[in-house]
């Protein structure tokens, strides 16, 4: 589907399209570094408490379902694939393919959130949500509650970022679907792609840290 002669709107402060594209891309990468440091605070807390109370982490981690976590990781990795293919589609100017791939990415993201919500509900039923209703029959319940405080903060923050990601992908899907040509949206899709892959990166580390703590016994 040949792209018709389309004009790339160039913001006044840029001299040419290449400078604009480089700036946008560098801006997103720097933003992702701030996100790395934002999650970094939680990773530091996790590392400290895992060092201080490893037995509690072992006991608590067993209450999480490894299979559900694995499925969720697979879902998110697939969504990363569809997003990468979507970026390829927009570079090749294939609008229809772009729209389908973006919709696939959104639905996979939604599936991930669905599974996550189910896990939260299951934790709620087993009184594993920290606070007054927290109940844990095993040893050192206080330190296990600390694990779950960290668990809900980390996965909650990740889920929040995923929701923001889904909204952004939704916007560019709508834009891609409504516009005749995709030339205008190339950079936008690339940037949202970077953000989506970052969310996947965070989960790649969260899964082994939270679910696979010494589960072999």
């Amino acid at each position: 589907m040949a792209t018709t002669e389309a004009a790339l709107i160039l913001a006044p402060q840029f001299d040419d399209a290449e400078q604009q594209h480089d700036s946008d891309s560098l801006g997103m990468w720097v933003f992702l570094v701030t996100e790395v440091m934002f999650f970094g605070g939680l990773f530091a807390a996790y590392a400290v408490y895992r060092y201080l109370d490893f037995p509690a982490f072992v006991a608590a981690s067993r209450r999480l379902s490894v299979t559900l976590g694995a499925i969720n990781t697979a879902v998110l990795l697939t969504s990363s694939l569809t997003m990468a293919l979507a970026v390829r589609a927009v570079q090749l100017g294939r609008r229809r393919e772009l729209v389908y791939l973006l919709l696939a990415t959104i639905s996979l993201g939604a599936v991930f959130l669905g599974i996550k919500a189910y896990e939260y509900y299951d934790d709620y039923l087993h009184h594993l949500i920290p606070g007054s209703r927290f109940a844990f029959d095993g040893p050192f319940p206080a330190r296990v509650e600390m694990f779950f405080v960290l668990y809900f903060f980390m996965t909650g923050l990740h889920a929040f970022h995923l929701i923001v990601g889904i909204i952004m992908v939704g916007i560019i899907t709508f834009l891609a679907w409504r516009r005749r040509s995709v030339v205008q949206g190339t950079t936008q899709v690339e940037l949202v792609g970077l953000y989506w892959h970052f969310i996947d990166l965070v989960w790649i580390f969260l899964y082994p840290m939270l679910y696979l703590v010494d589960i072999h016994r």
Partner: protein
Amino acid sequence: MSDAIVPLRTNFAVFGGLMVLLLATVGLARFDLGRGNLIVAMTIAAIKALLVLLYFMHLKYSHRLTWVVAVAGIIWLSLLLLLTLSDFTSRGWIDVPGK
């Protein structure tokens, strides 16, 4: 993030690699490697992260500056983790309580 277009084959190959590594990390977690479990899990996660960074996020085809930004993020995260842990791990080395 240059205009390099990642061929289909590479995308699916990377995806395959990620799936295999996922199975590997879950599988290896079944074995009791003592301290090794953490190291194994984190290296597999690091490889998966590298795959996503290089191919899906086009770092492999990007300008050298983007490399510097990505590496800076990793370095600063490890600065925070290592120096914070340096306090908690070195407590009790000296027989002065609380120091």
